[in-house]
């Protein structure tokens, strides 16, 4: 078995009002794996993702990233390794210019200016947005914003890239080109939360089904996503045979 990159063990989380959001969630993701996290609205997908880099902290359960247990002290180290792309790019792109946003992560990692510039260039290149550094984030189209949002995280060169609903709000062409973009990250470990079964099917080798805060299934994408009964039981749709 290859190296374990993410280990989650017995994770519980309750919303401030007491509602259970995550109950005894455990899974492991290995280096280079591409995993889809699927489940109906309110299943706890986003909540789970926010735990993986310590934005939300649970009272019980253990998260280990590349051998490093997530604690108050390791928080900043872990955030450099776990790149989280939020669902709404308007939340992710908070600077005026694209360049500032892509440079934000590397600057906070304390990298020297020259290295920051190099990484900004690389990240923009990787998402096919070379030359966009001087543009104003607000003026970008939805698809472009998505790409830049991914670049803001790629510039930190994280060990794992986590995307929350990457295809939401994109038109078919934007969605297609996003899938191609994500497919081009061959060595990158990916965890993608989505309702887009087709996207999960095209990109992921494995899927985890989350429903009502519990893991309902975990297995090869080709098996789970085509299992009509399983998908329907969890408010999802199966991918037709191809």
């Amino acid at each position, binding site marked *: 078995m290859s190296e374990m990159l993410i280990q989650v063990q017995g994770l519980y989380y309750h919303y401030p009002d007491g509602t259970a959001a995550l109950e005894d969630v455990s899974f492991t993701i290995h280096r280079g794996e591409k995993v889809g996290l699927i489940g109906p609205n309110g299943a706890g997908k986003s909540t789970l993702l926010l735990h993986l880099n310590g934005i939300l902290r649970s009272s019980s359960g253990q998260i280990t990233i590349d051998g490093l247990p997530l604690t108050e002290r390791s928080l900043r180290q872990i*955030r450099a390794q776990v790149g989280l792309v939020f669902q709404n790019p308007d939340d992710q792109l908070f600077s005026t210019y694209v360049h500032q946003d892509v440079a934000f992560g590397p600057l906070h990692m304390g990298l020297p*200016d020259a290295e920051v510039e190099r990484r900004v260039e690389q990240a923009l290149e990787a998402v096919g947005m070379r030359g966009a550094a001087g543009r104003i984030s*607000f003026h970008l189209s939805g698809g472009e914003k998505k790409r830049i949002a991914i670049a*803001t995280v790629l510039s930190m060169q994280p060990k794992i890239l986590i995307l929350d609903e990457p295809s939401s709000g994109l038109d078919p062409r934007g969605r297609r080109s996003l899938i191609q973009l994500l497919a081009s990250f061959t060595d990158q470990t990916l965890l993608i939360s989505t309702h887009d079964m087709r996207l999960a099917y095209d990109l992921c080798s494995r899927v985890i089904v989350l429903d009502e805060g519990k893991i309902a299934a975990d297995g090869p994408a080709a098996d789970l996503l085509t299992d009509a009964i399983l998908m329907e039981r969890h408010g999802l749709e199966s991918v037709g045979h191809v």
Partner: protein
Amino acid sequence: MQFNVKDRPSMGDTPLHALDPRMKLVVAVLLIVGIVLTPERALPAYPLLWALVASLAVIGRVGVWRLARLGTVALPFALAGLTLLFTTPGQPLATVGGLTISDAGLLRFVSILIKSWLATQVSILLSLTTPFTDLLGALESLGIPQTLVLITSFLYRYVFTLNDEADRLRQARASRSAAPTYGRGGGRWWWRAQVAGGMIGNLFLRSTERSERVYAAMLARGFSGQMRAIAPPPLTWRAALPGLLPLLGLIVIEVLARLWWNG
């Protein structure tokens, strides 16, 4: 609003655009202070100050008349000085509704109008020839607390997003604000006011939630309370020198105003 934040050219290649933003900010502040401190009786100084501002506008390829028009945006605030007309002791000129206008009061009021018009032009010229982020960077390197600079930059970033959000709310209301086939629609004013109040509250909640998501996105990328940016290049004498020219002009005008025209 006459002065729209969205119409911001800022990408020219004139000497004014090229001047280091830190120097530009300092020059602009000094010009404004100089204009404000001009003795009110030194009437010949005002056209000269305007000529100074206008020549800067020409250098920056901002239309002189356009700038003059934009400069009027702050005039309503100068009306706060209206009471000076009546309260400043001096020779009575006229009586309006039982209140007496003095000559000294008139002079003071007019000079305030002119000064605020000129000072506004200077700051608009600065904002038209400097990209907003450069301006923020200049503020920060001149020692303005980072928190204030940060708040301003977020304001600039999200004012459009917020505006879009408000537009969507308005559209949602408009598309359901149908009139009945017979009779007058629209509801009572008290009900309409409640709807508007609800919309404002809604906008506030949406913004608060957004700010929490933005903050989470910052944390996810390692934010620890301190904003970092790529260090600006050091300010050299060569870069700062052209900024001294308008200051020289200002000094000449102010010296004349104090020595000759202040009689």
